[in-house]
């Protein structure tokens, strides 16, 4: 029987991600969709020498911007060298838990930022506006450490994008945002940039809350009249120590690996994963744009069926 999953072409490689810290992280958050931890070596850290050829190829292909994730990118001792090289080619965004910052490190980042014509964005993950709400997800004592990291960034002239997974019902967004704003104002962040993310119900998160329902799949008919630019695999790829994968969300799925070089990883991709559904519903999930706008109409488009 022919598959009912749509197949998506890569329009142009606008955005290139690097799984720069692999699945290694100093924290072990219980919502992590690729289950990163200090012991998870499923994907290893990338060295500068592994990274550089991809950056050079990206420049030839006309890549617009670069993102770095993990794991915790600042646990990678080559990261500063990697960022310095990147900022000569294009803008860079680093997704971090902000627990490994020192004033010296932030100073070095600020110098790098000021020397480049491009933006250096730091996206800080924080999953509650208090220790009571954040620590059960990110680990004991992490709220305090994250706030200290954010304060160091503010002192260095950065305006970090605070990223939180929506672990509350969507109707509570406004109250939650107000809570984040109050906590951040206390450390001097007057007009905080906040991005709310939907839960990706895979990895640890499937165990923390619940996984996808068996009906959560994108079908061909759901693509009619849908702006496929909302799906990151239409304009992006991610490089890990293993090669080039289709997207950051599926990076540890065995058949997400498309090739060893960017030029050999441009093939179209069948949207057969349940996590594709979250990308479909929320759109622009991984980009820096603030709070993912929720299109409630799309919420009702999944195939009907018992949950």
């Amino acid at each position, binding site marked *: 029987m022919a598959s009912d999953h749509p197949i998506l072409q890569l329009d142009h490689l606008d955005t290139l991600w690097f799984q720069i810290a692999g699945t290694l992280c100093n924290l072990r958050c219980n919502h992590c969709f690729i289950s990163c931890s200090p012991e998870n070596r499923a994907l290893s850290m990338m060295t500068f020498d592994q990274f550089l050829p991809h950056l050079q190829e990206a420049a030839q292909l*006309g890549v*617009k911007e670069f993102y770095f994730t993990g794991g915790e990118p600042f646990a990678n001792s080559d990261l500063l060298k990697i960022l310095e090289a990147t900022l000569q*080619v*294009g*803008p860079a965004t680093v997704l971090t838990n902000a627990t490994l910052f020192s004033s010296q490190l932030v100073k070095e980042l600020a110098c790098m930022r000021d020397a480049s014509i*491009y933006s250096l964005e730091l996206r800080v993950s924080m999953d509650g506006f208090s220790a009571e709400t954040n620590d059960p997800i990110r680990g004991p004592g992490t709220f305090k450490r994250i706030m200290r990291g954010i304060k160091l960034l503010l002192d260095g002239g950065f305006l970090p994008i605070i990223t939180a997974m929506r672990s509350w019902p969507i109707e509570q967004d406004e109250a939650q945002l107000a809570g984040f704003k109050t906590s951040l104002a206390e450390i001097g962040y007057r007009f905080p940039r906040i991005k709310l993310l939907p839960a990706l119900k895979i990895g640890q998160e499937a165990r923390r809350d619940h996984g996808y329902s068996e009906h959560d799949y994108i079908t061909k008919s759901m693509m009619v009249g849908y702006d496929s630019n909302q799906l990151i695999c239409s304009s992006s790829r991610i490089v890990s120590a293993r090669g080039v994968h289709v997207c950051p969300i599926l990076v540890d799925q065995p058949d997400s690996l498309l090739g060893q070089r960017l030029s050999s990883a441009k093939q179209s991709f069948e949207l057969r994963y349940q996590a594709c559904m979250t990308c479909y519903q929320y759109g622009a999930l991984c980009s820096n744009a603030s709070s993912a706008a929720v299109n409630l109409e799309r919420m009702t488009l999944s195939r009907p069926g018992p949950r």
Partner: protein
Amino acid sequence: MQRIALFGGVYSNYLALEALLKDARARGLQCLYCLGDLGAFGPWPDRVCQILRETEIPVVQGNYDNSVGNRLADCQCGYTDPRDNYFAKQSYDYTFRHTSSENKNWLRKLPREIRIQVGPYRVLLCHGSPRKMNEFLWETTTSDAFLNWLFEKHDADIIVGTHTGLHWHREPSPGKHFINCGAIGRPPNDGQTTVVYTIISADNAENAGNACRLKVDFIRLAYDHERLAAEMASEGLPEEFIETIRTGWWTTCNEILPAKERARGNY
């Protein structure tokens, strides 16, 4: 020497448009092009349409013009933040209600791009980017590599856009220029009340040898912004929009800004 004036992001600011026409005349400029987004923050959108139609200035269609012209439900501005979208909707609903059917039909038929020759340069005028009307090409998040790809893909030496409302110019490789001509509808978030349009100058093709250089000048344009603010207030437009006109600082649409552009603003 060939000189042309480029402007966009008019946002119903008919007073700035009148000031621009006067300023361009005083500078002896005869070729003017508008890069779209005629409506938005300001009052009485038909006034801008009327001026542009009477003067027969060529206009590229912006996302706002496409939305109003095609009677769409929103402005397709591309914001993702709930507060930004709230204000975008206020602005769009007002503009939609106050644009005549005849002007809507005119907006619908505007071209998505205009190509002209300036000296030796093949110039492509668009609203956001040549590939997407509402693409944000910010100065600090658009790589040289990407711009070079656009020049090649779209057979152009100069690409001009306006969508972000913040002016900038870069020559990512010799003889290739990307220009954001700025917006005349609201100031560029730098605490000044003046707005921005662009003049580009180049030698005529027959005189232009290797020595030909493109000159790009961003013009700061003063207009009666207090009058605009008062008229916006009389129309019941949001106080936040009026504050931007009076102070030169953006109060909305900030969440879409990249780090460096955001750090230059007040909010």
